[in-house]
């Protein structure tokens, strides 16, 4: 079957294509591909996708640093790394590029740094020479109070994780799910967690080995130019996830009420 590939120049400016080619991406259909990683423009942003490892739980830790999370695309589970368009348009012009790189414009530098981030983390590694940003609170990115989420009876504390190989925001949605939780409740709990990470591009939800449901914005490997805007957007995403999800998670995991209603709902 012959196909007519869409001119990538209609999708990506020539400068972006040059950047992608330097990282091994080649035009394929409406997007690009480098090995197992496919790149497609989605709205104003970009989405990198690779097959989700077979037999791995979609709510398990993908074992990759960065914004990778499980999402279903065309009825197949994929590991997806999404970059919103606003990020690459408005990034801090003081970016980090290796010596000898062309004098690209600010948006192109941000795009190139982002692609380098994706390519490295797709292999389970961090960009060469990466170090985590300084403490965002001490750096004035946001006040310490922003890490506290209190909405009515919902009370959560976002954990800021900084280590030589890690920079992430972590939100524990609830305590460990009881082992004796009825299957119907566990199924709904998993469903709302998967829907949440499909909706929030920066958020990865999980039920850890200790059965604790969490939401994480993993910015390990993030380029300096993108760290502050992504950290702020990630924190806001977690605040909204908490507002929408915590009470539902607590109801499903710890309440005795509603089993019959859940069963009836599943039968529809």
């Amino acid at each position, binding site marked *: 079957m012959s196909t007519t590939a869409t001119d990538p120049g209609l999708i990506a400016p020539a400068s972006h294509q040059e950047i992608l080619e330097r990282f091994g991406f080649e035009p394929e259909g409406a997007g690009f591909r480098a090995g197992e990683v496919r790149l497609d423009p989605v709205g104003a942003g970009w989405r990198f996708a690779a097959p989700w490892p077979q037999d791995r739980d979609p709510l398990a830790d993908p074992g*990759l*640093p960065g914004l990778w999370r499980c999402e279903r695309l065309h009825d197949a589970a994929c590991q997806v790394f999404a970059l919103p368009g606003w990020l690459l348009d408005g990034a801090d012009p003081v970016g980090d590029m290796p010596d000898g790189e062309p004098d690209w414009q600010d948006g192109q530098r941000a795009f190139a740094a982002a692609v380098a981030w994706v390519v490295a983390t797709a292999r389970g590694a961090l960009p060469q020479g990466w170090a985590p940003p300084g403490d965002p609170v001490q750096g004035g990115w946001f006040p310490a*109070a922003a890490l*506290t989420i209190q909405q009515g*009876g919902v009370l959560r*504390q976002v*954990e800021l994780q900084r280590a030589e190989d890690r920079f992430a925001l972590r939100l*524990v949605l609830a305590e460990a799910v009881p082992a004796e939780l009825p299957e119907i409740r566990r199924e709904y709990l998993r469903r709302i967690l998967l829907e949440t990470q499909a909706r929030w591009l920066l958020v990865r939800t999980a039920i850890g080995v200790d059965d604790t449901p969490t939401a994480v914005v993993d910015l390990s490997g993030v380029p300096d130019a993108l760290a502050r805007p992504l950290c702020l957007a990630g924190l806001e995403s977690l605040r909204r996830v908490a507002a929408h999800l915590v009470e539902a998670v607590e109801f499903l995991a710890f309440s005795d009420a509603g089993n019959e209603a859940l069963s009836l709902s599943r039968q529809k």
Partner: protein
Amino acid sequence: MVKHLTDTPTLDIDAVDVTNSRTLNARGIRSSTPVGSVARAFASRMDLPGNVPWSLRNDRTGAILDEEKPIGEELGPGERVVVTPRSHLGSA
């Protein structure tokens, strides 16, 4: 490979209101959570009036917890708190 970092310490807190008619057993409160946020959340969970500023009082010592400080610095394990209306009596 991504390291799994140790969780932030947590507290399990038992709380009552001033009438001792409403109780709350809160589990897994992050020690870094500000006291003021804990007080507001507890008041909400207890269906206490939302237009009243609330404080936490250590039931054992009687001390009002500093609302700006992390709960872990103000409260030890196993201690109970009373959710009490905040009253500013003025300085002498």
